[in-house]
């Protein structure tokens, strides 16, 4: 292995820093755990509320904030039973309950049509269910955070070249250049392109795993989610 990819030892592992949700709760670190959950789940919850309850942008934002505020206050993780469902499912169901309660409460105070029901025009043709959208947004957010982590890590280690190549190839939306073309463009041998990409992908996998570890109950759920995530 060349020196560029050898940092950190033969497997280039960084030690896992994230505790699972159950570990965090047991160690009395619920608020830190909640922060991680919010970082990952804010957008998915928002999108879910918009689609499922047909809220407009402002109302959906308010409801999302309200949900997480309430979750922070109550012992959100206490009622979570990993044996019954994944954390993702548990959270989504909690959102549904929360939104339903809010709707009922608002109706009790109704002063004649408070609740706005605007058609969610910019969502486009609803080809997927709110639940599917929730999961999809969750995947997006998971990778988004992991990519941020990767970029930060590359900046820290001085591996901008690696990230640059990774961005050029794996993050390319349009047609991808070949390895040979990339090699020419960046003035490095083709084998380096292969190695750098392999390293970057490996690191991305690490970061995704860490983000996931911090928002699942434990090893078993992590395994199940990992299997679902990777194609």
């Amino acid at each position, binding site marked *: 292995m060349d020196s560029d990819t050898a940092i950190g030892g033969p*497997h280039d*592992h960084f030690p896992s820093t994230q505790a699972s949700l159950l570990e965090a709760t047991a160690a009395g670190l619920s608020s830190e755990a909640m922060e991680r959950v919010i970082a990952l789940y804010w957008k998915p919850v928002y999108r879910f509320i918009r689609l499922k309850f047909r809220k407009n942008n402002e109302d959906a934002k308010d409801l999302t904030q309200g949900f997480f505020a309430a979750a922070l206050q109550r012992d959100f993780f206490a009622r979570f039973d990993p044996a019954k469902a994944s954390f993702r499912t548990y959270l989504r169901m909690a959102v549904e309950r929360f939104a339903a309660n809010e709707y009922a409460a608002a109706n009790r105070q109704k002063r004649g049509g408070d609740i706005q029901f605007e058609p969610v025009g910019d969502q486009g043709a609803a080809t997927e269910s709110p639940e599917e959208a929730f999961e999809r947004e969750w995947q*997006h957010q998971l990778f988004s955070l992991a*990519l941020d982590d990767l*970029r930060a890590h590359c900046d820290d280690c001085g591996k901008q070249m690696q990230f640059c190549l990774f961005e050029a190839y*794996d993050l390319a939306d349009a047609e991808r250049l070949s390895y040979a073309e990339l090699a020419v463009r960046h003035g490095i041998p083709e084998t380096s392109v292969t190695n750098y990409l392999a390293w970057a992908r*490996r690191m991305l996998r690490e970061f995704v795993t860490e983000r996931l570890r911090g928002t699942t109950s434990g090893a078993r759920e992590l395994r199940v989610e990992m299997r679902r*995530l990777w*194609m």
Partner: protein
Amino acid sequence: MDVSDSVLDHLRHVGALPDLTGTRYELESEIGRGGMGVVYAARDRQLDRRVALKVLDFALAGEAQLIAHLEHPAIVPIYESGTLADGRPFYAMKLVSGARLDRYLAEQPTLAECLRVIRRVGEALAFAHSHGIIHRDLKPQNVMVGPFGEVYVMDWGVDAVAGTPAFRAPDDRLDQRSDIFALGALLQFLLYAPAPPALRAIVAKAMSAVPAARYPDVPALLADIERFELGLAIEAWSEPLWHKLRRFCSRNAVLLWLVVAYTLVKFLLFFLRNF
């Protein structure tokens, strides 16, 4: 950092591929997915041959340690085990070409061929049992039949988690008798209806809900199958008299025809002489 749907799917795909840097293998293609991981075809650069690489999702007390020291024609030889650069355990084993048992059935093998496959699987099981190893997840997807009739039993020692309930014994213990249950289920899987009552009886005995009622070990089951193939009485079934007679007649057909011929000749000569 947001990405589009297509990039997300691309990342999900490349993130799943095994990172083979630092190994002597070159990834070729994905062959299949099992309960615990994915199997790829790869090329061993050093020895210039194709191998199968099984990459496990996570490190579990896996099959490699269990069966690497077992040498048997029906157990896939393990060449190497190790850890990938991304931390996932893998092992390299012989690349077996052929059809999994569920696809082998599509070729409509004869009863004799099916029993031969069962016998090979049973021999591998008996061998493993004698070394204290239980398969625990025997099912058609874990048996391969090669182009020359070679039979391989794979995916040893993996706990049938979500597994295939049809092949899992109702009792929770995972020991030799649960393997015997699965072998019986495998035999049932291969039989077309209508199956000979003797074979159905063997299946029923192997698959009894009560473990103690099953065959005590795999060789006993195989012996009953062999007795069936030879036209002898089997242990699993107390057959009705007419079936015993039918069996006797088919086993001793030549002799019975000769005796019939003798009697006919005698009668013929007698009547010719007198009438």
